[in-house]
């Protein structure tokens, strides 16, 4: 990531003549594209079984507006089940909007059919699409990893203007297995876009402390919400491939790659089915 930013900086830094219209719009004819189903299914402890099933589109296919967005995107009328510990939950084709998280789902089990808060047993997903094609997936819930501490630090200067602090987040990794994490940092509310959103693993960790840091960006009184997800290897791979695909567009040094899903079946699906265990804490920025 540092590397790509460096090259982008250098690249643009060298475009002294960038104002001379070196970027222009062109007409291109892309190869034919076969529309695919797109799935996001997360098993969240204590939450209802629910998922979002949509469809992809040709890159230059007409874009939906906010009014017909759902109609255009959603892939309805599929048969969806999740099986766990011998029980099969049927997810009905229904539109569900979670006002707290601002997320939508078009398949959900009953309001009392909740994922367990912890379990060692696998979850199996089976979907049959209206055209007869199938989607299959399997996942588990991992152990929750707690954040050990969030340290708020002000710069060590006497400048009266230096009033902003940074936050250092520490947690302990289990060296006995390969672990993957996603860590998000929000400012004041979860409604806003995250300040930071990283996926990482413990490949390079020599002892068992992992840390994340920020720049000196936060004022006294700000609330920092830190969320640490303990995720599976295939979800980490999926997230990195999605980020890689998005980053390759517009970056001449990027290496494009297809999105790497963890789903099977006959439907040539794109997406992810994963357990999502998290730990969250709030910290208020204060001068000590």
């Amino acid at each position, binding site marked *: 990531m*540092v*590397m790509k930013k*460096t090259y982008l900086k*250098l690249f643009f830094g*060298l475009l002294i*003549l960038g104002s001379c*219209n*070196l*970027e*222009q*719009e*062109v007409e*291109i004819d892309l190869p034919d*594209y076969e529309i*695919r189903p797109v799935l*996001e299914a*997360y098993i969240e402890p204590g939450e209802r079984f629910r998922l979002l099933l949509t*469809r*992809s*589109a*040709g*890159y*230059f296919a007409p*874009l939906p*507006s906010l009014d017909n*967005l759902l109609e255009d*995107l959603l892939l309805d009328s599929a048969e969806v089940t999740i099986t766990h510990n011998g029980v099969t939950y049927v997810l009905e084709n229904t539109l569900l909007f979670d006002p707290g*998280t*601002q*997320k*939508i789902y078009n398949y959900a089990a009953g309001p009392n059919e909740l994922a367990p808060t912890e379990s060692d047993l696998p979850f199996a997903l089976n979907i049959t699409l209206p055209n007869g094609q199938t989607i299959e997936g399997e996942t588990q819930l991992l152990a929750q990893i707690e954040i050990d501490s969030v340290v708020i*630090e002000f*710069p060590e200067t006497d400048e009266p203007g230096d009033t902003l602090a940074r936050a250092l987040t520490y947690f302990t990794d289990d060296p006995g297995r390969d672990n993957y994490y996603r860590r998000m940092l929000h400012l004041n509310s*979860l*409604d*806003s*876009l*995250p300040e930071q959103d990283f996926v990482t693993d413990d*490949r*390079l*960790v*020599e002892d068992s402390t992992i*840390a994340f*840091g920020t720049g000196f960006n936060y004022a006294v009184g700000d609330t920092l919400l830190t969320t640490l997800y303990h995720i599976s290897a295939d979800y980490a*791979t999926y997230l*990195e*491939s999605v980020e890689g*695909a*998005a980053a*390759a567009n*517009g970056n*001449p*040094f*990027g*290496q*494009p790659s*297809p*999105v*790497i899903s963890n789903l099977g079946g006959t439907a040539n699906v*794109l997406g992810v089915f994963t357990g999502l265990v998290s730990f969250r804490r709030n910290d208020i920025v204060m001068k000590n």
Partner: protein
Amino acid sequence: MMRLFYMLTGLLLTVVVQAQDITISGTIKDGENGEDLIGATVAVPSLGLGTSSNTYGFYSLSVPTGDSVRIVFSYVGFQSQAFTLLPKADTTFNVNLTTGVELDEVVVKANSFQEQINSTEMSVEAISTREAKLLPVLLGESDILKTIQLKPGIPSGSEGRTGLFVRGGAQDQNLIVLDEAVVYNANHLFGFFSTFNTDAVKDLKIYKGGFPAEYGGRLSSVIDVKLRDGNNQKFAGSGGLGLIASRLTLEGPIQKDKSSFIISGRRTYVDLLTRQVNRANEGNEDFSAIPDYYFYDLNAKVNFQLSDKDRLFLSGYFGRDVFGFSSDFFNFNFDWGNATGTARWNHVFSPKLFANTTFTYSDYQYNINNQITGFSFGLGSNIADASLKTDFFYAANNTHTIRFGAMATHHAFTVGRLQAGSDDGVVNFSAGQEFNGVELGAYVSDEMKFSDAFSVNAGLRLSGFDNDGKTYVGLEPRVAARYKLSDRWVVKSSYARMYQYLHLIANAGVALPTDIWYPSTQRVKPQRSDQVATGVSYLLGSKYFLNFEVYYKWLDNQLQFVDGAQIFVNDALEDEFAVGEGRAYGMEFSIEKKEGRLTGWIGYTLALTRLQNFETLDPNGRFAQESEGFGPFNPIYDRRHDISVVALYEITKRLTASATFVYGSGDLTWLPPGRFTFQDVAGAGFEAVVPDYRERNNYRLPAYHRLDLGFVYKFFPKWGESDLTLSVINAYDRRNAFFIFFEPEFEGEGNNTSGIEIPTRIAAKQVSLFPILPSITWNFKF
């Protein structure tokens, strides 16, 4: 029994008769500055005998005893000299050739074309520094390596595509040697300039096929760069002041006729300007400081004639690119470069036997250092070689010239060395791999002249590589044959097998300094190629040389990245590789004119490269092309058509104009044919448009074409020579595609805080790098 007796007697007589020949040998040099002349012709026209000088200017010719012989020595750009000798015994005869002309047009004899007709070498391109200095150049920096890309078979660059892709070979398949030391990254500024300072270069040759047995280690090309030795007659200098860089070369005798030195340096100075701009804007909050960037290189060489039979050469190269950025809380430094050192000893054992022994050291590294208050991060990679080789040249007689030799190289690799952590030591992580490999080679070849018309150069190279508890050995046959249909027509064919034990881990397109050299290991097998080529050349009149060649190349154990490869900071880098095979074939045609006021060439290449059957080294790895049934694909450097037209016109003695026109099919690029939306988890933004990449390299960029113009106006002051060179790159301001991306456009108010933004349309945008770029340089010579 009797038959055997006659045969043996006949053989003995041949040897005896041959033994009565006398050998005339020596060195051919430029009389004005003592430089060895490489490939100078030595001929006895009355007897139909001939040979040429080797890379150290040494020649050896066998003539019958008894009669006097008239020997003619000639070399392009020099006056031929003829001598009548009556040798009674083996004779050492050194020759100094001079240009012999003042300011008149230098008459270039057709002997350089004749040499190409006579030689068994094919698939070779050479360029003189004179041509390189006259052709229009980017930002005024003449670049011999960039200029040779105007020859057929070598795609002449594209917008920002700076690697060399010779006959469908990947950018790591080029062996670049500078005075026998391997140069791993011959690029400054991501490849826009090469590391070769034209003022210091004597000769540059590129082999695209038919590789002589003394070369090995890379599949697709050998770029052999020889530095000048330095004027051993008088002190001299040259240099230039350009738009972005300046250079200076100083040379002279240490002891006249016996030893000389040359030192050549170059540096850019845009950073001096940008630092002033930064300083002027220090108080301006809206201003983003421009990062520092500069590159420099230094070539130095001394040579000593220790005795009649011994010469010693010591040369070195050091170059660096430095990029830096710093602010109150953040420091970033990125530097990369090569260092090479060579010590060579020539020894003449006898008039027929010449040897060169070389010790070289070569080092390529990059270092990234990043510091944010409280944290530091360092990343680097390095390859260091120490190599010893010896090459013998044995002119057995006029029908057999034998070359043999051996080499051993120790490679030390540091791959992805990372050290990062907090200043208080609480957080600490590191990564990196180290390898030590030994590469060996031994070869023998014989240039056999069966008749005036038919010659064959047959050779065998044995190579090996040891690393990671695994030893690879390869046998590399090399054959080249030439049949002269007449003095003007020649047909040539060649076959060469090559092994490559080192691999460049890189994105296919742009030459980045962070590209990593990785050795063959237990899992990563050596790359291999087999190339056949056949061609015909015709000398039309005395001025035009036509060359037509077709080739076919089989490539094995080719590496690509798996989908979603993690290249940086990865101790298990091999898990990111997929291995497959390739095929490259094509046709090259050129017509060249070297005499007269108008000189130049036109070259056309029609080629295809295809890769297929990739399997991942890690069973869990994914290579979508295969697993999703997409099948064979073309790499991004697969260019179907490539045309170059180069013309130099001497308007007057002072003024030369030049023009270069290139046209090529666009490179391939990988564009996503589809898109999807990604809602993501609570707290994360909604991505309305995420690309869905499918088949690799599925789109061909628009054709690349460009016209460059140059003018050189010479002055002749008392102290020497100078000129003003004006270059206009991209004279008709063609916007060639560097890359294409898709940009969603949003109209009206976006509801940013909730993170849901739907674009109203998506535009395809093309980015170009170079508009019309004029530049002016002042060059001087004293």
